[in-house]
């Protein structure tokens, strides 16, 4: 088997395969990814037989290109080149585009076109950007297959939680019939605090914003659209059900009151924003009553996903659904899972 051969000691003893990365987006996740990559370079070479170099970093202000490989460091303005991601894709030789620009669920932003260009050029693509995956997963997969490359996007649903790998690899031959989960850490933090401290929604939101868990404009999180995007991704990839955002019935948590959370708690339930989708029936994101002892009752900013499987019953995984290094861990795992 090809996997086994790649990972055999004999293969690893050969010179490592040189992998050149174009990194688009250099925010919290991009910098964390670059740092983890540099810090573990020797281990990655020894264990996975690849020597990974970042040959270009693209930001909105321009690009930094060093074909011999860049160290993670502050990007000096005088080294900046006036190039867009598509310029870099055209001019810089690379093996993979790591796309970590901010999510745009309406149009996919420039990321969608850049991913298409990279695939057409024969580059593998790893992304944490939900926009392109939500808007055109079937199209992107087809394009990748046609060009003999892979598109991986583990970090787009549940960030650090290896849900795609679980479904694709560990559960081979065991169809997933339904998925439900707490898919947004911001909402979960707010609801946890409303339950623990009896805070009202506005107070809990303010606290989440002060701690950096919620954006100044929290709409995408508290109105349920971020969770809905993840439902769409999981439905398409894990269940093979071609849903788009408009197919998801979405209710956010703005109308939830502290009294409601407290009352539910007294009756043995936690209130959680749950995304749920099965092979048929409606796909939903809504506040739900979850028994206090349920694995879905995760605390704080944690996420959890439960897969109902045909033969193994339910399997739940919880972990961090956001954060720089947490998200970067999934991006790196995707990069190393590519067929080098």
């Amino acid at each position: 088997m090809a996997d086994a051969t790649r990972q055999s000691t004999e293969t690893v003893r050969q010179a490592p395969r040189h992998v050149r990365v174009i990194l688009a987006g250099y925010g919290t996740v991009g910098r964390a990814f670059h740092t983890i990559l540099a810090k573990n370079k020797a281990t990655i070479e020894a264990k996975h037989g690849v020597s990974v170099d970042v040959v270009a970093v693209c930001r909105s202000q321009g690009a930094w290109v060093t074909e011999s490989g860049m160290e993670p460091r502050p990007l000096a303005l005088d080294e900046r080149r006036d190039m867009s991601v598509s310029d870099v894709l055209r001019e810089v030789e690379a093996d993979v585009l790591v796309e970590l620009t901010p999510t745009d669920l309406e149009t996919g932003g420039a990321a969608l076109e850049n991913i298409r260009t990279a695939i057409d050029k024969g580059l593998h693509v790893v992304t944490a950007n939900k926009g392109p995956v939500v808007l055109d997963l079937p199209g992107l997969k087809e394009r990748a297959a046609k060009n003999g490359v892979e598109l991986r996007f583990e970090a787009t649903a549940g960030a650090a939680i290896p849900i795609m790998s679980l479904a694709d690899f560990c559960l081979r031959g065991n169809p997933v019939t339904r998925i439900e989960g707490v898919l947004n850490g911001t909402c979960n933090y707010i609801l946890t605090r409303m339950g623990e401290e009896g805070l009202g929604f506005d107070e809990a939101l303010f606290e989440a914003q002060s701690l950096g868990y919620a954006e100044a404009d929290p709409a995408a999180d508290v109105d349920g659209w971020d969770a809905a995007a993840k439902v769409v991704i999981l439905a398409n990839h894990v269940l093979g059900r071609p849903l788009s955002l408009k197919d998801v019935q979405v209710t956010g948590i703005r109308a939830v009151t502290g009294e409601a959370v407290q009352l539910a708690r007294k009756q043995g339930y936690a209130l959680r924003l749950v995304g749920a989708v099965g092979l048929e029936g409606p796909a939903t994101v809504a506040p739900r009553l979850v028994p206090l002892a349920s694995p879905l009752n995760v605390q704080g900013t944690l996420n959890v996903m439960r897969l109902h499987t045909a033969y193994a019953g339910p399997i739940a995984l919880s972990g961090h659904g956001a954060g720089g290094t947490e998200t970067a861990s999934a991006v790196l795992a995707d990069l190393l899972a590519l067929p080098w």
Partner: protein
Amino acid sequence: MVDAGAPMKMELDVELRDVPGQLSFVLDRVTEHGGNIESVVHHRQDARGEWVPVRIVFEVAPMRAHRLVEALKERVRVLSASGEKKGHPMAFLLVGHVFDSHIDDYLEGLYESGCRVHRVQAEVTGKSAPSAVFIDITGDDDAAVGRAVETLERLSSERGILLVRGLPEVA
């Protein structure tokens, strides 16, 4: 002898006067009605004056349960008596100005769906503030629960109330 049906588990919360003979009165009535006692727990920490809350768990034939409870009421305070829920459970939470419109409509809708309503608990903070109402039901099958969900969805949506549903839990 009349077939009284397969035994069901009952949880009985009573308040007993803290004097000799009270507990044996209760236990004798349970036994007389064919009940099989599983546990008796005194909650002395919650005593109110000479009244001590006691929870008694036993199995009894459903047809005898009602008469048993009536018999107990002669001498002790019965706080609650609940049979073990069978069938498909579901919990709901209504959030908003639930009491501005007829709350009985929700309960009527639930009864019409064929479900049994076990608990209705409300949290009301003031006339202008939104309230929260918790409802716990069981239906004989998924179809009955489905009808209950549909009814509550329709009523709550018409009235601008947030309906929070339970999630079917997996063992």
